[in-house]
């Protein structure tokens, strides 16, 4: 009984944290963007603009919710939810650390909701579902730019999911397990997978950027050619759901990279594991934001040729070489 209760508490806590994360992330992203472009970023709401995300949230809540007249009303309403659910469901199997003992109750708690036997496969499968929200949102809007955005993202996600999964396989071959906890345990003591799988890391990072629609691969929401892309017709909270999804996807992708390649919660002992974990994730999020404001966007044919002609053969070669080395 107490186990069930504990799982319930963990689900609630993780969901709340993940729900709240986009607020600071939008602020950080805008601040970093500002400073990279020699601006200040948000400054007026609160000291150094720290209350800006709350102001944005309130604004989004009270905006009018517009459904275009020719849109498919049912799909238009359900698409943001379909987009958001997979982004949250992924966290069911993500471990944030090993065991901790609660200080007062003296009870050991696992820092994950479930340690699935099929951990990585589950995450990749669920993450693949997030494309539905984008495609359906684009299609249901019944407008040309969102439709093009949806088409682009479906082609992009199918292409890059291959490279992403193949990059994982190298890690799985080394560790001999699909469970994320096992993968992190196998990396303890500085045996980080990035040292053994540098090519896999680079492929995973690039394909991950494409998978979560970040620059330089944010073709589905290309402002220059598509006018915001698949969510061009969305407003108010439905638009906020799409934004939320993107930031949560960014967080989960950073967490995945940390777990697979950067040793998870492994680190020098003077800090607890969870702190190392959070530090690494924060660093990766910063790098993702940093790349966004450094590189220009790729053209669509370039995106496709990078995915199919470079990343996919490279990841296959990586699997081959890993297999040879292991044998």
């Amino acid at each position, binding site marked *: 009984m107490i186990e069930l209760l504990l799982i319930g508490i963990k689900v609630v806590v993780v969901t709340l944290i993940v729900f709240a994360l986009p607020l600071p992330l939008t602020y950080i992203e805008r601040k970093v963007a500002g400073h990279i472009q020699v601006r200040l970023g948000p400054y007026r709401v609160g000291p150094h603009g720290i209350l800006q995300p709350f102001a944005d949230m309130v604004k989004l809540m009270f905006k009018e919710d517009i459904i275009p007249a020719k849109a498919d009303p049912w799909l238009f309403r359900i698409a943001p939810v379909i987009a958001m659910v997979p982004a949250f469901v992924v966290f069911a199997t993500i471990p944030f650390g090993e065991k901790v003992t609660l200080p007062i109750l003296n009870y050991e708690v696992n820092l994950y909701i479930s340690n699935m036997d099929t951990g990585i*496969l589950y995450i990749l499968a669920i993450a693949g579902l997030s494309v539905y929200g984008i495609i359906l949102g684009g299609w249901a809007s019944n407008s040309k730019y969102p439709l093009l955005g949806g088409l682009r993202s479906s082609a992009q996600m199918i292409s890059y999911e291959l490279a992403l999964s193949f990059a994982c396989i190298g890690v799985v071959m080394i560790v001999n397990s699909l469970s994320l906890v096992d993968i992190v345990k196998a990396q303890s003591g500085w045996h980080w997978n990035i040292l053994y799988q540098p090519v896999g890391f680079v492929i995973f990072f690039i394909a991950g950027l494409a998978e979560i629609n970040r620059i330089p691969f944010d073709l589905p929401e290309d402002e220059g050619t598509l006018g915001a892309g698949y969510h061009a017709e969305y407003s108010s909270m439905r638009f906020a759901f799409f934004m939320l999804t993107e930031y949560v996807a960014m967080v989960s992708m950073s967490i995945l990279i940390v777990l697979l390649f950067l040793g998870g919660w492994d680190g020098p002992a003077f800090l607890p594991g969870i702190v190392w974990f959070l530090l690494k994730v924060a660093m990766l999020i910063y790098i993702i934001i940093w790349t966004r404001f450094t590189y220009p966007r790729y053209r669509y044919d370039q995106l496709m040729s990078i995915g199919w002609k470079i990343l996919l053969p490279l990841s296959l070669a990586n699997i081959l070489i890993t297999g040879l080395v292991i044998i």
Partner: protein
Amino acid sequence: MAEQIFFFVFAILAVGSAIAVVSLRNPVHSVISLMVCFLQMAALFVMLRSPFIAVVQVFVYVGAVLVLFLFVIMMLDIAKAGMERFVSGGKLWVIALLGALLLEMVLMISRSRLSAITAPAAGRLTGTVREVGEALFTKYILPFEVVSLILLVALLGAIVLGRKELR
């Protein structure tokens, strides 16, 4: 008991969405219902202690096959194809036949010895990836290779068919 409740939830959702798949006019709505149906099936696979199959189901069917369907639907003009009248009067015998078939199947199942097979208390099989993988790569290596060959052929076929002009 809890398991039965879950079974009923998943089964009713699966049957309902399956009916929606064949009865909705708009192919995009059909694809969404099919997605719901497949997800319920994945949940049933988890209940049957085979998580690997469940994940493969989500990965391959929901994550790839249905996205392909959506992609093709969006590339085609479905506006005129969507408005078809599909149960014409002449098709009533099909429904009658299918009903008879279903009745027969249910009768057979209820009168068979299936109820004698009870669920194993603590099974040998846990459905882990390790077990499935070992079986696939030792005992069933030949079918596995044949399937991979079929996939390769399908890949080539799809590329050839998808080209602009057939030479």
